[in-house]
């Protein structure tokens, strides 16, 4: 832990009475490498996270397109890429490859796109700026946090090319499929790399989370009481806390799975299973070949979901925070019910720890336990309800500016409602007996995670891009981008509900051989069309993004006439962020305040 700046020259920070300021001049001359690659500046690190996240978003998107191709036209030649990707199978996706397709798609999207983009990119960029700090509490740790992603990516990509195919046990990696080497082609070395990749992502998130919580707790500018913090900060704080308490359990579990695979222990493997007619574990008389087994497959499911359910809220809470801020700014109206918003986020986080069993209703778990999990799961809709209603309350009587970030923020609200509501069906145990692992689940989580989190990320990019690069993204193209993305997203995911009601299984490479599913192919084909369109449409974004970076309209400190602190810095902010001393007088949402004649009142303006 490197000491915070100046702690050596004066009393260590924290012993000084709250509100003290340490003013220090460090003439800051660093070379290119230290400035842009191994940088300790939270803004640079945030932007690094953003770029890697977006690149992986393209990768995950491509994988999704391959999935959609297979589901629309099973076992038919892939047009362009087929030749180079799988010559040996005659240019068609093999069933083995399909399994690793969705495994990798899920893994990439969740662990390398959404979490890095929300907490890594915007967490890093926004936290110090919004609370008025010069940087993170531990800049070096922050840098390591980013570079811990490097081995993660390395192992992930290694997994793709692993002998015997990439990991193919789904992103949930249920044993024994994932632990018994003979069970699946992809669970030779691919699964091992997958586990290592996950562990490194975990290490990165840990470093980040410790840093975020410390920074928010200790480095707020004078007057920035916790109930004057923007909701984005609250969201990031709460999701960091979720990371801290949930993630280590997954790390422990993945190490057990690693042991099962590499050292042939049997935490998750029952004693007498026979794979390919060869028992997975051998005579105890011959220790050399022995494999203990005698574990329990459900143990993994519990430990995995103990992290991965909180993880889904880690994936949505920051999105909610950004949406609240962006809506308030562009609606020119205070957030409706600030404190209820904070408490409901806390409520979601708290309940999030006791609902993980809802992923296991049909797993053979104890039905009484299942009932308990159902009640807590259904109740978690309550805080979410409060948030939704408060967003609408914020819009009510507002003066909406239909900017691209605003459109995406409202799109987030509209889509999150759909995704959340479908959660209620699955929370209902008897209903889940039927719809578990059907496309209703796929529809559900793509609505919350793509139409939700990714829309919020788009909103955040359009909104904070000016602060990052000092230039505005093109509004017209932005609107075109939103129009298509919104339309096609619903085209892709809405009808998946119907597929699910019809009982269509997820993770099936070719469902149409079943009489029950045969008639669903046209619907899947339509969905795939929308998916391809959705992907293609993103060129507007890519172009807008890069073009605006260099040729966008140059703007000043506060293009949106917003209140929160980050708009009180130059765009882009220099080293140390703030070029003047701060004092915070009020919360961040004083829009349309009668005190002043403009319709906004920055937190730092004295009246």
């Amino acid at each position, binding site marked *: 832990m490197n000491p915070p700046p100046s702690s050596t020259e004066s009393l260590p920070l924290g012993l000084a009475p709250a509100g003290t300021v340490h003013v220090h001049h460090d003439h800051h001359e660093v070379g290119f490498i230290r400035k842009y690659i191994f940088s300790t500046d939270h803004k640079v690190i945030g932007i690094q996270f953003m770029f890697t996240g977006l690149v992986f978003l393209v990768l995950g998107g491509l994988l999704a397109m391959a999935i959609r191709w297979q589901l629309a036209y099973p076992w038919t030649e892939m047009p362009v890429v087929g030749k180079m990707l799988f010559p040996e199978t005659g240019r068609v996706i093999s069933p083995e490859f399909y399994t690793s397709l969705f495994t990798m798609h899920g893994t990439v999207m969740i662990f390398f796109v959404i979490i890095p983009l929300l907490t890594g990119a915007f967490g890093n960029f926004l936290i110090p700026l919004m609370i008025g700090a010069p940087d993170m509490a531990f800049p070096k740790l922050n840098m390591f946090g980013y570079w811990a992603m490097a081995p993660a990516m390395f192992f992930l990509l290694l997994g793709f090319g692993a002998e015997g195919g990439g990991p193919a046990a789904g992103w949930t990696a249920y044993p024994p499929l994932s632990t018994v080497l003979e069970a699946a082609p992809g669970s030779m070395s691919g699964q091992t790399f997958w586990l290592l990749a996950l562990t490194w992502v975990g290490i990165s998130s840990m470093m980040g989370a410790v840093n975020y919580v410390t920074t928010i707790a200790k480095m707020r500018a004078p007057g920035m009481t916790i109930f004057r913090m923007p909701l984005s900060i609250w969201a990031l704080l709460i999701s960091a806390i979720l990371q801290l*308490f949930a993630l280590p359990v997954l790390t422990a579990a993945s190490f057990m799975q690693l042991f099962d695979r590499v050292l042939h222990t049997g935490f998750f493997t029952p004693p007498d299973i026979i794979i390919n007619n060869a028992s997975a574990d051998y005579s105890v008389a011959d220790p050399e070949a022995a494999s203990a087994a005698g574990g*329990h497959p459900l143990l993994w499911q519990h430990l995995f979901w103990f992290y991965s359910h909180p993880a889904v809220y880690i994936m949505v809470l920051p999105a909610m925070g950004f949406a609240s801020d962006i809506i308030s700014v562009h609606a020119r109206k205070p957030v409706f019910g600030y404190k209820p918003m904070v408490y409901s986020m806390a409520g979601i986080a708290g309940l999030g720890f006791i609902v993980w069993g809802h992923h296991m209703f049909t797993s053979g778990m104890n039905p009484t336990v299942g009932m308990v999990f159902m009640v807590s799961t259904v109740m978690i809709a309550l805080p979410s309800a409060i948030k939704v209603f408060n967003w609408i309350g914020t819009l009510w009587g507002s003066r909406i500016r239909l900017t691209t970030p605003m459109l995406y923020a409202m799109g987030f609200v509209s889509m999150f409602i759909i995704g959340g509501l479908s959660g209620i069906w699955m929370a209902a145990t008897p209903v889940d007996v039927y719809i578990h692992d059907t496309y209703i689940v796929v529809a559900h989580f793509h609505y919350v995670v793509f139409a939700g989190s990714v829309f919020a990320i788009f909103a955040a990019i359009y909104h904070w891009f000016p602060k990052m690069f000092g230039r505005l993204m093109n509004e017209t193209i932005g609107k075109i981008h939103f129009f298509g993305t919104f339309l096609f997203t619903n085209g892709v995911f809405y009808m998946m509900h119907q597929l699910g009601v019809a009982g269509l299984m997820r993770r099936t490479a070719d469902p149409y051989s079943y009489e029950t599913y045969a008639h669903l192919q046209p619907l899947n084909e339509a969905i795939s069309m929308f998916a391809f369109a959705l992907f293609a449409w993103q060129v507007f974004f890519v172009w807008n993004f890069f073009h605006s970076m260099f040729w966008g309209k140059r703007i000043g400190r506060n293009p949106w006439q917003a209140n929160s602190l980050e708009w009180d810095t130059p765009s882009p902010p220099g080293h140390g962020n703030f070029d003047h001393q701060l004092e915070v007088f009020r919360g961040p949402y004083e829009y349309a305040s009668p005190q002043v004649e403009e319709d906004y009142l920055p937190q730092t303006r004295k009246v």
Partner: protein
Amino acid sequence: MSDDSKHFSPDKVFLWLFVFTAAEVAWGMWLAGSNKLILWGGLGFFAFLKGWLIAVYFMHLKFEGWVVKSLILPTPLLVLVIWGYVSPDVSRSHHLDHPIGSMYNNDEGTVLHDMSVNDIEHGEAHEEGEH
């Protein structure tokens, strides 16, 4: 950081730790194999005392404010949550074919429930090691 008001005598604490460790080992060795409740009760008691001493004095928790305490407060709750929800499923499951820890024996093609086949005699290390 600890100003003088927060001083305590580490030597005393250490002495107690030493005593408890000795007592615990003695307890464990003598009562091994006897009534589990007595055995575990005693061991748990000693372990708790020792942990408590280390946390409260060596780790200074006694002298920390609510902030630090609140940082670790959730962990005991979560421990209970995990244990409470998982064990009915895994350890107390009525539907297990074989109790956890049983092993498959290829030679007889049977499932062993008793792990004591893998017990080892210390001291005879090297003869065992040969074959």
